[in-house]
């Protein structure tokens, strides 16, 4: 089992990134916090992998993907109305983009969506994403690019509107060590 000190370090390093990932994957911030807790519960019941660095983040987010999949399966068994705000119901441009983005993400292939979110929202490197998703780094590269092209096509109008506003701040990718 993971020691308390190791679990605390993991929590400090990855909690926010996990919450962001689940927030985008589920569209619900409260659910995201619950699922993040579930990840750390599962971590506490298993032993940390011996390797560190890239492998640790990949291992952690592999657990996160499994938690998200379990959550998705439970939601399918109990069909509930979509909680996302439809773009036409959104109050302002920002909310319109958020609503349209949620719909566009839902339209993506599941693995493409995960790869994209792990890159853009959780800031994982391609090597880390490859471990989390059981892919090769080249396959991760292709899927990220494909997801960007598809989202760009689905969100052409909101992106065009957003281009007229100041953009930023945007979190840059992690520097390669």
């Amino acid at each position, binding site marked *: 089992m993971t020691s308390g000190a190791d679990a605390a370090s993991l929590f400090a390093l990855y909690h926010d990134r996990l919450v962001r990932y689940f927030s985008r994957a589920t569209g*619900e911030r*409260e659910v995201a916090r619950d699922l993040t807790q579930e990840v750390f519960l599962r971590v506490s019941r298993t032993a940390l992998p011996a390797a560190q660095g890239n492998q640790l983040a990949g291992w952690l987010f592999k657990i996160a993907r499994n938690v998200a999949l379990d959550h998705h399966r439970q939601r399918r068994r109990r069909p509930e109305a979509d909680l996302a705000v439809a773009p036409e119901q959104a109050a302002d441009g920002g909310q319109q983009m*958020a609503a349209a983005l949620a719909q566009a993400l839902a339209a993506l292939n599941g693995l493409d969506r995960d790869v994209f979110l792990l890159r853009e929202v959780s800031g994982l490197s*391609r090597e880390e994403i490859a471990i989390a998703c059981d892919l090769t780094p080249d396959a991760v*590269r292709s899927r990220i690019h494909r997801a*960007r092209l598809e989202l760009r096509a689905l969100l052409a109008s909101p*992106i065009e509107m*957003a*281009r007229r506003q100041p953009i930023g701040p945007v979190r840059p*990718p992690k520097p390669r060590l």
Partner: protein
Amino acid sequence: MTTDYDVVSDFLDGEPFDAAALDQALADPDGRRLLIDSVVLRHAVQADDTITASERPAARRHRSLLWVAAAALVALAGGYQLGYYRQEGRASLSPPSASRVVTVDWQPASDEGAR
């Protein structure tokens, strides 16, 4: 030669990229547009505006209010019934009627015996 400009993704993700390929991509208006659109997309997906349960559409808020109203009615009705039964119970706890009466012939004491 690909016109998908995946080198733009390499550049955006901080990965090793082919400088000549990026130069070629950015020389093309489509390539430049892809870079800007990808940055806009990154900004949108990183924005902290995930829909929360408190931001449900009006239709679902209305249904939630109906449930709250129904729960309040049930609580009121239940409270009324509980109060009614308690009152009935309290009536049964009133003291029993007297079974024996004792008469005392009380006379005020005189001043001589006051000290």
